C-alpha cells in the first residue's frame, strides 16, 4: 500500500472507533496515568526532601538519579520481569503478565524523572526564598509543602515529562505485560504487533491516536497552568 492510502485507511479507523480499539486506548491511559500518579505521590516529597537534606553521599545519589532518567525501558522491563516471574523473588504474587506489572515497570521509568526534576526545582526555590521562609518559621521538612506549591508549574512539567516517557515506551510493557489481547495490550504494543503483521493502517491509526492523546493532555496541562498563573498574578 502506498503512503497516502495508508494514511487514509488509518484515519478511517480512528473515526470508526470500535470497542476493542477503545479498550486498548483505555488500558494504555489507565496504566500510564496510574504509574505517573504513584510516581508523583512518592517522587514529589522525596525529591523535595533530597533538595533540602544534607547527608554524606548526597551528590552520588543525585548523580545516580539523574542517570536513571535515561534508564532504557527494556532494561527496566527485564528487571521487573525477573522480579515478578514465578521463578523470581516476587513470583508468588502472580503479577507477571498483568496490568499491575506494567504499572510497576512504568513507575520505575517515571520515578527517577520526577525525583530528579523535583529536586532541582525545589533546590532552586529554596536558594531564592530561604531567608523569607526562615523568617516565617518554615525550615527543614516543614518548608516542603510550601516549596512544592510554589514550584507547581515546573513540577507539572516534570510530571508531563514522566507521562511522555511512560506512554511512549514499548520495551518494558511488552516484556512484563506479554501483549495479551484484551488484557495487557496497550497502544504501543499493539502498534508493534500490527506492524509485524504488516497491517500498517491499523498500526498507524493507533499511532495517530497516541499522538493525539499526548497532545490533548499537554494542552489541558498548559491551559490549566495559564489559568492558574493568571489568578496567581
Amino acid at each position, binding site marked *: *500500500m502506498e503512503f497516502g492510502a495508508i494514511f487514509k485507511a488509518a484515519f478511517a479507523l480512528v473515526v470508526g472507533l470500535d470497542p476493542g480499539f477503545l479498550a486498548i486506548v*483505555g488500558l494504555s*491511559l*489507565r496504566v500510564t*496515568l*496510574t504509574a*505517573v*500518579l504513584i510516581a*508523583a505521590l512518592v517522587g514529589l516529597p522525596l525529591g523535595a526532601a533530597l533538595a533540602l537534606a544534607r547527608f554524606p553521599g548526597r551528590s552520588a545519589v543525585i548523580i545516580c538519579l539523574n542517570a536513571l532518567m535515561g534508564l532504557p525501558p527494556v532494561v527496566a522491563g527485564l528487571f521487573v520481569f525477573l522480579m515478578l*516471574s*514465578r*521463578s523470581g523473588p516476587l*513470583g*508468588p504474587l*502472580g*503479577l*507477571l*503478565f*498483568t*496490568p*499491575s506489572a506494567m504499572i510497576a515497570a512504568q513507575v520505575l521509568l517515571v520515578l527517577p524523572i520526577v525525583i530528579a526534576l523535583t529536586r532541582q526545582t525545589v533546590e532552586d526555590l529554596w536558594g531564592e526564598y530561604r531567608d523569607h521562609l526562615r523568617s516565617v518559621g518554615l525550615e527543614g521538612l516543614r518548608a516542603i509543602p510550601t516549596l512544592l*506549591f510554589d514550584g*507547581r*508549574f515546573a513540577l*507539572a512539567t516534570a*510530571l*508531563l515529562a514522566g*507521562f511522555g516517557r511512560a506512554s511512549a515506551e514499548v520495551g518494558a510493557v511488552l516484556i512484563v505485560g*506479554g*501483549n*495479551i*489481547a484484551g*488484557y495487557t495490550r496497550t497502544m504501543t504494543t499493539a502498534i508493534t*504487533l500490527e*506492524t*509485524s*503483521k*504488516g*497491517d*500498517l493502517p491499523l498500526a498507524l491509526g493507533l499511532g495517530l491516536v497516541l499522538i493525539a492523546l499526548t497532545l490533548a*493532555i499537554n494542552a*489541558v*496541562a498548559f491551559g*490549566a*497552568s495559564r*489559568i*492558574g498563573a493568571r*489568578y*496567581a498574578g
Partner: protein
Amino acid sequence: MTLTRRLLLLTGLSVALSGAALAQTTTATPPAKTAPADAGSRFITVSSTTSTQDSGLFGHILPLFKAKTGIEVRVVSQGTGQALDTGRRGDADVVFVHAKAQEEKFVADGFGLERKPVMYNDFILIGPKADPAGIAGAKDITTALKAIQEKGAPFVSRGDKSGTHSAELALWKAAGIDLAEKKGAWYREIGQGMGAALNTAGSMGAYVLADRGTWLSFKNRGDLVISVEGDKRLFNQYGVIAVNPAKHPHVKINDGQAFVNWLVSPEGQKAIADYKIDGQQLFFPNATQAGA
C-alpha cells in the same frame, strides 16, 4: 484569598487529579482489578508462538473454547524457544509451540506433562518476484537453498530460536550447507518474529522461510511471492504441553489440561480446520496421527 488558593491548587494539579480520578474509576470496575489471585475470573496463561497469533488462529478458536468452558485463555506469543522458557519458569500453564525436538526435551526435563500433537501447516519459501536466485517453482527445497547460497542472493533468517528458525537451520543442514562457514553478507539474521521477517524481506528483496499461516494473513506483501512450496520436508508440526505442577505447584493444571484436551478433541480439531482466510485452510488438525 482562600478561594484563589483553592482554584490554584485545583488547576495547577489538574493533571494529577484527573489521573487519580481515572485510576479510581477504572480500578472500581472488575476487569481492571483482575489479578491472578482473584477468584471471580477463571483464566489460564498459554505461551505460544508468533505464527499462531499472527495468523489469527487464536482469535478464531479461543472464543469457542471460552463459550464452552468459561475459561479465558490469555496468550503470550513469543518465539518457540522463548515460549518454552516461559513455561520452564512457571509463567505459563500451557505451552503451544512447533519444534518437536525442543518440546520432547521440555517434557523429558520434567517441565511438561505430556506432549500431544495438535495440527500442522507447512513452511514456504518466500522470495521477490524478480527471483534473483532463479528458483521459482522449484520442487526441492534443498536445491533452492543451494542456489540462493551459491548466487549470494539475500536471505532473511529469523535468528530468534523460534520453531521456524529451527526448521530453517535443519533445512540448510539437509542441503549440505554449513552456515557457520558459508554465511556472509547475503545471510541476514534479524532476531525478530515472522511478520517482522516478512516486512524485512519485502523491503530488501530477500528470500525468507515462512509458515503458510502467517503468510496468508500477512498484509504488506509488496513484491513478495511464494518461490518454493510442497516439498514434504517443509512440514510444520504443532504440539501442546501442560506445564508440570510438580515443578510449579501454582500452575492451573485442571483448566490447563482442559484446554489441552479440548484442542485434541474432535470439537477442537474441527474448530482448527474451520479457520480459513480467503477460503484457504491454514492449519490441518492431526491429533490422532501416530508419531506426529
